């Protein structure tokens, strides 16, 4: 069986850094958006979809933070379910990019 990137239990790794820090505001908002989408009355996302999309990051999984994996998965789920299109998401991201430039 091929071991995928998220399946890391038992692998060698460095020292655990017990330090912690407060999440950035956008990371908390990402958690909140996911929680709202998962609420039964919306039912627009499920935890297993989030995990699948996270795991499908493959090599990029280790390059980005847990919070960014949540953002990535949320966008993917919405696209896969046809709630957002790639085009409108790309367009909105460009607008935000220009607004902050």
């Amino acid at each position, binding site marked *: 069986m091929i071991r995928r990137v998220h399946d*890391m*239990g038992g692998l060698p790794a460095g020292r655990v850094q017990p330090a912690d820090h407060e999440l950035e505001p956008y990371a908390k*908002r990402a958690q909140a958006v996911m929680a709202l989408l998962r609420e039964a009355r919306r039912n627009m996302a499920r935890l297993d979809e989030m995990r699948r999309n996270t795991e499908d990051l493959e090599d*990029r999984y280790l390059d*980005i933070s847990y919070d*960014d994996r949540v*953002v990535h998965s949320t966008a993917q789920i919405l696209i896969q379910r046809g709630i*957002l299109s*790639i085009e409108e*998401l790309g367009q909105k991201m460009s607008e935000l990019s220009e607004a902050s430039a």
Partner: protein
Amino acid sequence: MNDRLNDGGQPEEDTRGYYKRMQSAVEELLILKGVFTREDVDRTVAEIEARDYRRGAVVVARAWVDAAYRARLLQNGRAACEELGLKVGPLHLIVVENTDSVHNVIVCTLCSCYPRMLLGLPPEWYKSGEYRSRVVREPRKVLEEFGTTLPVDVRIRVHDSSADMRYLVLPMRPAGTEGWSEERLAEVVTRDCLVGTALPKAA
């Protein structure tokens, strides 16, 4: 897959900015589409911020003073938490009890499942590759990195969580807390005690 965003090839220093922008864009588009309102998101952020490990500490303190409650907690974690008005949601909660001979630690090797309803958001290290990889193989060494050294004759049991099965550690009541109130007992129960990387101490 053709439904994937082309998010590869971003310069490294720009990655965080890229995902921040993606988060804003997703939120704004969902508000425009009427999926939820800005206020819904603000309120949910506030709820997330309000949930922290003190909920778990209250459960532990009750179990320390009430043997019948402790038995119910070990038998059905969710029902026992709900007795205290703490909503666990549609998942199994298994409470694992530390004793003189067994110490318990929790992890989620595959993602970062965590008893959020009782502990709030997981700390950075709980989500790290280092913790997820190593605590199942060399827990004693990892605990030492947290400053927790256990006697060699204490067995360490590591519990790997999943999306629908969460664990909570019930630590041993520390010596020197005889006669303490439940409120005072709850104060010695830190987040790390509930994960199993620390032991409560009577301050």
